Structures are given as C-alpha cells and as structure tokens.
C-alpha cells in the first residue's frame, strides 16, 4: 500500500493511487451494468407480482420472500453500481459496519415493541 505518494499522481476512480497495491479491481463494463439493471427490474416485477397474488400474500412465505428479494436488490446495487465488490476493503467496513448496527437496532426495536416475538 502506498503511503507517501504525492497528490500529483493520477488517482483511480475508487479514490486510490495509480500504484495502489489492490490491483485487480477493474470496474465492470457497461454491458454488466445493463445486465444488472435488467436483473433489478425483473426482481421488482416479481415483487409487485407477488403483491397481487392474494393466496401468496396470505401465506407465511410472502414476507420472507419479499425481504429476500429486497435484500438481493440492495446487495446487487451496492456490489455492482457502488463498486463495493471491486473497491478497497476500508469502504466495505465503513458501509457494512453501520448497516449491521442499523439492522440489529431495527430488529431489536421490532422485538421491543412486540412486532416480532419468540415462542419459548
């Protein structure tokens, strides 16, 4: 890892120096971006489709399947469009850390206010 480069060196778009040690993080091409866009659209269509099937809405699988589809979309955007898959680990820590804390807070509040429960 370069620790003493001058600002005159050309930076990468990921904010690192040109001679940074984390090589192999080339961003995807526009074709990959379009494919990701198609996948996101298809998942959104599946989500809305599920919403309009009354028997599925009434089933136990409805909420978990929507949450999973939403999580897949979330991770896809973060990994490919926000380039977290290709960027430096520090960015991953800076994002995943707060997201984990926020998620745990959300789940804790749901338990605290009785929206979630565990039957013993």
């Amino acid at each position, binding site marked *: *890892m*370069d*620790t003493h*480069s001058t*600002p*005159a060196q*050309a*930076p*990468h*778009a*990921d*904010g*690192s*120096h040109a001679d*940074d*040690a984390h090589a192999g993080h080339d*961003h995807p*091409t*526009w074709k990959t*971006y*379009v494919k*990701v*866009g198609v996948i*996101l*659209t298809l998942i*959104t269509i599946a*989500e*809305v489709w*599920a*919403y309009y099937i009354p028997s599925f809405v009434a089933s136990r699988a*409805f*909420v978990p399947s*929507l*949450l999973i*589809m*939403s999580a897949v*979309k*979330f991770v896809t*955007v*973060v990994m490919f*469009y*926000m*380039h977290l898959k290709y960027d*430096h680990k*520090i*960015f991953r820590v*800076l*994002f995943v*850390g*707060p*997201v984990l*804390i*926020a*998620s745990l*807070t*959300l789940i804790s*509040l*749901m338990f605290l*206010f009785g*929206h979630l429960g565990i039957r013993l």
Partner: protein
Amino acid sequence: MSATAHYTSTGLDNRKIAVWAFIGSECMLFVSLISTYLIYKGRSVVGPYPHEPWTNPANGEKLPAILNIPITSASTFVLLMSSLAMVMALAAVQNKNVPKHTRGDRIIGSSKLWLWMTALLGTIFLGFQAYEFTSFVHEGLTIRTNLFGSSFFTLTGFHGAHVTAGVLWLLTLLAIDYRRGLGPKDALNVDIAALYWHFVDVIWIVIFTLVYLIQ
C-alpha cells in the same frame, strides 16, 4: 481536482472515505425513520390506512387502502433506471479519452447524455412523489391525521429531500461538463456523486418493500 486531492495514510482519497462514512451514518438515519414507521404501523386510531379499506368519519363513505402500488412501482422502476444511467455516466467520464468509432460508442461514451438522463429520471421520481403526496392530502391523509401519516410523510419526505439534493448535485456536474468537460481526472468527483445517488436508490429499495409491499 486531482491536483488538490488529499490522500490518507491508506493511500485512499479522504473524500471517498468521507463519503462512505457519510453513507454509513445516513443508513443509521434512515433505519431510525423506517423503525419508527414500522413501530407505528397498524396503531393508527383513525384512517386512512396503508393497506386496509377505511370509512371516512365525516360522511361515512367507504374508501379503499390509500397506497397506490402501480404508481409507486413505476416510480421505483424509474429510480432503478436512474442508477443505471448514473453508473453509465461514471463509465463515460472514466473512458472519456478512449477513441469512439461508432455512433453507439459515442452514445455510451456521452457523459452529458447520461448525466441528463439521471437528473431527468430523478426529477420524474420526484414528480411521482409529489403526485402521491398531493393525492394523499386530497384523500384526507396529512402528516397530522394519524400515526401512519406522520411516520409515512416523515420517512418518504426525508427520502425525497435526499433525491432533490442528488438532482441538484447532478445539475452542478452537468454545468461543469458543459463549461470545461468532465474527464478521467474528474472521475473521483463523479464517483462520489454516483455513490450518493446509488445510496438514495438502495434506501428506496428498502422503503418500497417495507412500506409499500409488506401488508
């Protein structure tokens, strides 16, 4: 901008580290708003309700659930496509110096086109939100009506404000692009704007599922 960039001991530009830290803190903000919405969900004493029909106490009229899923699905699609346009804009700026031989190459490599597209799609999303808010008010739901109204308008209003800030940011990038052209040396600046825009998108992905689809 690279001539004025400040690098940390990690070799990374401190602006990019800062924007990721900012995005992390924004996640906390939005989760607090989403938590509030979910805690209050189903606890409104009077209608309108998000997913259940309700009776207007003023005239006894029976009214359907207030959320308009087809409209919101369309606005969700628009915001997703704006993220695609944003990432295309970043790729165009990064590859500005790559020779473009065909018309297709020139379209894909036009940062102005993709920045315009992103700003336009963001504005369309805001238009959908303005329509939704206006129709809700006409149907009797304001921020003071019930717990659903308070938490819903606060959450989606905050998100809309973030989208508005993003559109303004994109317009400033467009102004720079028209004035002197955006090139690879500006890639980091565009990347930072793109990160913010995608963050606004991922937050909407969560809101769309938790607020609109889960009943």
